[in-house]
């Protein structure tokens, strides 16, 4: 458990460092959200998607920073309480949770791969740039999978 305590300490520091580093960026996205929202001009659809993208960017920025701080507080509390640290350890190392994550990742990968492949074929008839980009994504994803597979087959 002492090793896990060290890991949590490191994680707490990392969360705080990244949280503080990203805080100005999050504030900037929030500032842009308020200053740009009324500046988006054009047709209704342009204004709608412009607003959605603007909101998405601001929401994402704030959420990431908040999550980092929430995690840092969670680790800080766990480090002070033995029961809480044990619960956190169990939650993170629970084999069923690990198996669920592995299974869902595997299925999601296959679904995403298939979706990109279908999109690549369909967009080939409409826009060659988009189709080629999707093809490059497919190639990159496949390459990553192969490299990681080889890496793990040497480890196990």
């Amino acid at each position: 458990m002492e090793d896990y305590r060290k890991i949590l300490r490191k994680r707490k520091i990392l969360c705080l460092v990244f949280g503080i580093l990203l805080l100005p960026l999050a504030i900037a996205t929030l500032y842009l959200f308020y200053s740009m929202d009324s500046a988006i001009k054009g047709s209704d659809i342009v204004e709608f998607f412009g607003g959605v993208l603007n909101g998405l960017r601001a929401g994402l920025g704030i959420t990431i920073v908040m999550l980092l701080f929430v995690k840092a507080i969670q680790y800080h509390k766990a480090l002070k309480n033995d029961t809480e640290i044990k619960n956190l350890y169990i939650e993170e190392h629970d084999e069923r949770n690990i198996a669920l994550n592995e299974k869902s990742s595997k299925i999601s990968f296959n679904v995403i791969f298939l979706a990109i492949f279908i999109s690549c074929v369909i967009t080939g008839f409409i826009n060659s740039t988009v189709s080629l980009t999707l093809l490059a994504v497919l190639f990159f994803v496949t390459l990553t999978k192969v490299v990681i597979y080889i890496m793990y087959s040497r480890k196990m």
Partner: protein
Amino acid sequence: MKNNIKALRKEHKLSQEELALAVGTTRQTITSIEVGKYTASLPLAYKIAKYFGKTIEEVFDFSDLEGI
């Protein structure tokens, strides 16, 4: 995979939560193992069996694997 965890738990007057905490897993995992939705790994099966003072074969029923 069938097992006697529920019966052993009742015998020892233990809740799923208590057993989970004792063997270092979550209550949900114990529930899934008890109803046969999830098969425990060898280390977890060993921990559960050891906790009840039994062998793995006494806790888990491996008859399903005999035909393989």
